[in-house]
């Protein structure tokens, strides 16, 4: 019997933030009451018609929603298999799905009377999306970013500064996204009276995984209608890349009860799972506790978090949202991986065939969709979340081609 006939997916998480054995609240005592305050506010405003109307208006007029679903005909013909449709989150203001969430959380911050916004960022997309909404609402904004990521995403660093944010280089640990998250947590615990922490993915302590998911499900809710309008039915498969997993859960969630829709989350295999140099905790990690929740992690036998590797900074994270951990264990979603090399090839293929330059993160989803399509027939449909555009990756890709721009 398909799992979705037994499981009520909309009941997750429980009131303390558990998705099965994952999720929860694993933070120092100082943050327990601020998290409870945030949870109360989030529960209240997600039922508040004035708040929801303001959110909808911003998503329409500022972000540019709904984003289209596009039939990638030439790309599909390439495979000879299933028809591939793209949910164009790359067309959002600031160039990725991240803004869906930052708009929502920033409106909450305003309601809570907070004057200062902090965020962590890896590729810089969440940092840019946060700096953008902070500028618009007149809130002070500080973004923590690992110094390694600052070096490889300098264009986004400049964009954040242009928007009035202060970008703080994080020099501790591996100097990447996980360390930026640690530093943002430290800032939050030190400034809880006036500061709102906008987490960029479906990780962190409850209520973040549920709250970020709820703001991102606009992707799946729109796509579910759009794909039915265009094809007359539900898709056979969904594909999205998974770092922390916010774009993926945003697409997947409204389809969880549709047992006939196969769901694939694509992790970063980096230089290959067998090399250990990857960022695929669901495919090759184990259960543990980090950043406020229990989930799958990349860690050694002593419980120390290990360094990750991916060509895309946005997937370069040793954990994953707890709901994905639970979807994996429950069997409702399948998690697979794509190497740097495969993602790069897909990056070029989509650019050439469709005139769409995808983010390196989203290129992982495209690469898997191309593999999957070959195994399917032209009457079948794959819906891919094109979570972001590739402008930010020009330097990375050019450097790999030996070109300096």
């Amino acid at each position: 019997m398909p799992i979705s006939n037994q499981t009520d997916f909309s009941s997750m998480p429980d009131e303390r933030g558990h998705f099965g054995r994952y999720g929860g609240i694993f933070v120092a005592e100082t943050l327990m009451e601020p998290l409870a305050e945030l949870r109360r506010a989030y529960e209240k405003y997600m039922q508040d018609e004035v708040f929801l109307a303001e959110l909808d208006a911003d998503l329409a007029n500022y972000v540019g929603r709904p984003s289209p679903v596009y039939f990638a005909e030439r790309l599909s013909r390439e495979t000879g298999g299933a028809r591939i449709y793209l949910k164009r989150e790359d067309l959002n203001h600031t160039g990725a799905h991240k803004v869906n969430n930052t708009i929502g959380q920033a409106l909450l911050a305003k309601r809570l009377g907070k004057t200062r916004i902090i965020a962590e960022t890896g590729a810089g997309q969440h940092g840019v999306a946060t700096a953008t909404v902070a500028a618009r609402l007149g809130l002070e904004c500080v973004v923590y970013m690992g110094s390694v990521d600052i070096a490889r995403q300098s264009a986004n660093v400049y964009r954040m500064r242009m928007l009035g944010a202060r970008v703080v280089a994080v020099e501790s640990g591996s100097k990447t996204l996980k360390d930026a998250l640690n530093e943002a947590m430290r800032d939050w615990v030190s400034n809880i009276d006036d500061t709102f922490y906008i987490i960029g993915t479906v990780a962190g302590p409850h209520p973040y995984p549920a709250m970020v998911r709820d703001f991102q499900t606009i992707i799946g809710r729109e796509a579910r209608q759009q794909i039915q309008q265009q094809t007359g039915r539900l898709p056979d498969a969904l594909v999205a890349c998974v770092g922390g997993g916010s774009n993926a859960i945003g697409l997947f969630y409204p389809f969880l009860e549709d047992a006939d829709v196969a769901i694939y989350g694509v992790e970063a295999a980096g230089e290959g799972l067998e090399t250990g140099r990857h960022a695929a905790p669901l495919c090759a990690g184990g259960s543990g506790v980090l950043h406020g929740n229990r989930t799958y992690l990349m860690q050694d036998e002593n419980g120390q978090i290990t360094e990750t590797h991916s060509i895309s900074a946005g997937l370069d994270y040793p954990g994953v949202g707890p709901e994905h951990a639970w979807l994996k264990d429950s069997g409702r979603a399948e998690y697979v991986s794509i190497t740097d090399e495969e993602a790069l090839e897909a990056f070029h293929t989509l650019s050439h065939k469709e005139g769409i330059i995808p983010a390196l993160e989203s290129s992982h989803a495209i690469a898997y969709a191309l593999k999957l399509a070959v195994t399917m027939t032209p009457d079948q449909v794959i819906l891919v979340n094109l979570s972001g555009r590739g402008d930010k990756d020009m330097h990375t890709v050019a450097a790999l081609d030996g070109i300096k721009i």
Partner: protein
Amino acid sequence: MSRISGCFAQLEQQNRVALIPFVTAGDPNPDLTVPLMHAMVAAGANIIELGVPFSDPMADGPVIQRASERALKHGTSLRDVIGMVARFRQDDPNTPVILMGYLNPVEVMGYELFAEMAAEAGVDGLLTVDLPPEEADDLLDVLHPEGIDPIFLLAPTSTEERIRRVCDAASGFVYYVSVKGITGSASFAIGEVAAKVAGIRKQTRLPVGVGFGIKTPENAQAVAQVGDAVIVGSALVSRVEALAGSTDEIAPAVVELLVAMRRAMDLI
């Protein structure tokens, strides 16, 4: 009665406050930790808090973060730390030792194995910074039979209801975090600490330790007038860091500060 409760009972009879130093195990190298623990006891420490290094110490300031990094360079694992306690116990059967760190190393080792090994080595308490009582049931179930006290934090943000819940789950003592911040933060306001500790005492008969931001003998003396234990971490770890290149001088420098704190605390 656990070693920790016994220690507090004895100090109460003497009308003294406990001095609890924190150092990170394995910092700057694993061979120095056990001798440093003995030196701290000789300097007047009543309980030792031994930091278990973790790759992602979210609640710690830069000083203890770097201590973790130095210890991890030598591969100091939770098993190694438990081994250090066992060696310490060979020469000191009395001084309570608390392990302080983050949940993941304990989670990955497995709660039951941890409790068994730690109890056998002579560990008396466990403080996992990122484990609030709400998530602690499974761990408490294995710590209790082994006689290991679960130590929990209270903070300036803790409501009355939370103070009650935390004190219900805790044994040995409760640890009041004096500031809204991370370890090594700027100093606390003693008036606010006194008020909050008084509020905690209304909810529990457990001893109340106070830590975070205690840097000087004067700080220690002020806190000794409101709490049952003075917990000192970053101020000691900074001394370890400053002398990481000349390790012979570490113990004397740590002892110097502890002796001065002990003297100031005993003057009240």
